[in-house]
Every structure is written in structure tokens, then in C-alpha cells.
């Protein structure tokens, strides 16, 4: 079991009781207070089936308890594959996949963007796609009769720039 899932004593002084309200005001986090901890999400989760460090029920419980730092600074929130299985099955309609997106967005805002996202933001800014479209790629495309694609889309770069995401990627702090 990794450190992030190990049971440890919760110290009252570190809890932020208003965290659940903060999350419920985020886009995607609106229904968090409806969770009654049945665990259908965790039981349905394909990630949890192979990796104990991800547990959506526990993430929700931690938010409800006010464990703000632990939720936002640690890796588990980044391990959702957004398959929506939990969201489809949740009897309380908590919208868990949307909620985890909201938590990842908040973590990013606080400077804790997952390190693997930094090069993705950079590549998207440079090329507008997750893959650079080289001459070699276009030659391969031509062989299959596929149209040539240009290697740069300025529009994505200007969007990432105008929302401040490029800046956020360069200023990320280390996570715990």
C-alpha cells in the first residue's frame, strides 16, 4: 500500500471545514455534499481494481472532512481515467468524474499541476496537437493517400496563453 492510502491520524488543526463548500462551488463539484459513502464508485472503478492508491470514495470523504492539502497536493486525484463508470452508477448522482476534474483544476490553480501535464501544455502550445506533425509523418500519410497536415496551429497557443495556463505550467510547485 502506498503512503497516500495508509491510515493515519487526522489532526483537527490541519482540517479546513469549509473545503467541502469551496468544492461545491466549483464547476463539476456542485453535488459533493450528497455523497453518503456507499462506495459504489470505488467498487466500480477500473483503476482501483488494479491500484489501491486510487479510491474515489475516500477522496470524497477527505474533501468532506476538510483534508484540503492532502487532496490537492497528493497524486491520487490524477489517477482517474475519466471512464465515467462511477458517475453512471452513483445512486446519489454526485457526478464523481466531473468532481475529480474540478479537484484537478483546483490543484492546478494552487500550483500543483501534475508534472506530466507540463510537457503536454508545452506541446499543445507549440503544435496545437499532442503530436508534432513532422515531414516524416506527412510522408507516411501521403503513402496512404491522406492529406498533408500543417505542423502548427496558432489558435490553441493563443487560447492557452489567454487563460493563463501556459503561465501556470511554468510556475508549478512540487507536489508532496
Amino acid at each position: 500500500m502506498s503512503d497516500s492510502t495508509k491510515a493515519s491520524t487526522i489532526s483537527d488543526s490541519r482540517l479546513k471545514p469549509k473545503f467541502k463548500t469551496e468544492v461545491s462551488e466549483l464547476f463539476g463539484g456542485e453535488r459533493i455534499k450528497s455523497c453518503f459513502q456507499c462506495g459504489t464508485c470505488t467498487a466500480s472503478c477500473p483503476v482501483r481494481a488494479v491500484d489501491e492508491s486510487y479510491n474515489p470514495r475516500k477522496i470524497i470523504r477527505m474533501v468532506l472532512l476538510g483534508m484540503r492539502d492532502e487532496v490537492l497536493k497528493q497524486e491520487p486525484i490524477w489517477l482517474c481515467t475519466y471512464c465515467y463508470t462511477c458517475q453512471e452508477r452513483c445512486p446519489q448522482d454526485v457526478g464523481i468524474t466531473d468532481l475529480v476534474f474540478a479537484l484537478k483544476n483546483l490543484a492546478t490553480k494552487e500550483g500543483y499541476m501534475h508534472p506530466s501535464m507540463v510537457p503536454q501544455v508545452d506541446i499543445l502550445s507549440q503544435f496545437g496537437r499532442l503530436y508534432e506533425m513532422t515531414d516524416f509523418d506527412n510522408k507516411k500519410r501521403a503513402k496512404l493517400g491522406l492529406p498533408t497536415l500543417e505542423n502548427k496551429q496558432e489558435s490553441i497557443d493563443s487560447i492557452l496563453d489567454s487563460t493563463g495556463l501556459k503561465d501556470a505550467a511554468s510556475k508549478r510547485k512540487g507536489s508532496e
Partner: protein
Amino acid sequence: MKYALFLGCTIPARGLHYEASARKVAEFLGIELVDMPGAGCCGMPIRNVNQTSSLAMSAAALQQAEEMGLELVTLCSACNSTLTEAAHLLHEDKELREKTNATLKKAGKKPYGGTTKVWHFTRLLHEKIGPEKIADLIKTPLSGVKIVSHAGCHYLKPRTVFGGFDSPEDPVTLDALIEATGAESVQIINRNECCGGGILGFKEDTSVKIAGGKLKRIIDAGDIDAMVLHCPFCNIMYESHQKKLERDSGEKIDLPIIFLPELLGLAFGLDTKELGFGQHKVKPSAILEKLGV
């Protein structure tokens, strides 16, 4: 029938056989696909970190199709889910659309009016052509070919966004198109499990382990000729990672992973080379031999 074709990131670089076969099958069925010059990423990866940005990226794609006066079709399930959800949000919520248009304006882009309909190519084939008509057009029936389908997640979820056109727990549309070719779509345990691709960049071992689970269940089912799917990222998980999974477990998998349009093209009697069959990392030669093509 004319649609704007949104390619996204992965297909033009890593899913050439999917793109080639989809274009050939569309042409064969009289569907005109019009390219979207300058279109880039749909916004999916950025959703993780900033939904204002990802929504603006989606809106830019939707706006381009709107300006072309066409409905938009994607081959990638990730693009499909991201763009369908963005359209759903931006069409329902005028305030959010205005906010998103303000972001687009700041980036020097035109505002989105809120009219573009988004299709996954599979759903388009199912609803606009239909399995019956497809069955009528078959030249090489794929009788005796046993397939396990992979509908995946972002073809039909979340249900609230897709309106339940197909069931997330028991999907049937992809299977109906597979069976229209004469092939058998075999049901296995937990057949709707996610490929794990969403976290490949975040925790590779966990991600690949998820993909390996379904591959193992297919091998255990016995006698399956191929998996058929319709998302380039699911393909990366099941085809590109097969060798690594074989090395890690010491067990042979050797399961061909075929895109739906390749399978349809094969049954329509189209040229396998032009469909991109030469691009596979796991060679589907056994099926081609079985069919004598």
C-alpha cells in the same frame, strides 16, 4: 450526406489506418467528409488542468464546423466525448457560452453561435446508414470470424450528455455494425471495462495493467480472432502495449486489434492495403488468410 471531419491529435499521427479506412468506407457509403484546415486538439487533455481553456478549445472546433455549415464527425472517442459535452454545455447554458466566447475573443478567435451537432463516426453509421443497409452491401461475409467489441467509455458516456442513444452498461450499436458483416460479436465478462488510457501519462504501469485485464479475458474466452474498437487511444492501449504486456507476463497474447471501418471495408471488398491493414503492430494476417484476401 456531408460532414466536417475533425481528426484531433492521435489519429493523424498514430492511427493512420483508422483514418484511411474511415475515409474509404465513408466514400463507399456516399458520406462526404470535408477536412477542417487548421483544426487542432479538442481540449480533452487540458480538461484535467483548466476547463475554461478546454471548453474554449472545443468551442473553437465547434465554431469552425458551424462556419462550414456542417455537422461535425469525429473518429476519436475522446474527441467525441469532449466535443459532445462542450456542445451540450454551450448550447444549454447561454451564460457559459458568453464566457467561453469572451475567452475565444481574447485569443483572437470568432465566437461560437451554439448550433453544431457532434457525431462519432460509428454512431453516424448506425443511425444514418444502419446495420441492415450495411449488411446488404457486404461482398465478403465475415462468417466464422469471432470478434470481441470494445465500445469504450467516451463513445457513449456520460449518459446525461449523450441522451442514452446507447446503453453504457450494455451497449449494442457497435456490436450491431460488427454483426452486419457476418462476423460474430462474442460477449465476455466485464466487456465494457475502460482501456486505462486516461492515465497513461500519469501512471503508466497502472494504465497498462488495466488494458491487460481485458486482453487476458479475451484470450481466456478462447478462439477470438480480433478485438474491434473505434478509438485511437484505446488502440494504443490494446495494440501498441501488447508486446510490453507479453514481456511482463511471459504469456503470449497476439490478438489483432482492428478499427471498425477496417472491418467494414474488409467486408465491403475494399483493398486491404488502401484500408491501412499494413500499419498494424499486431498483424491481422490470420483473419485475412481465413477470408482468403
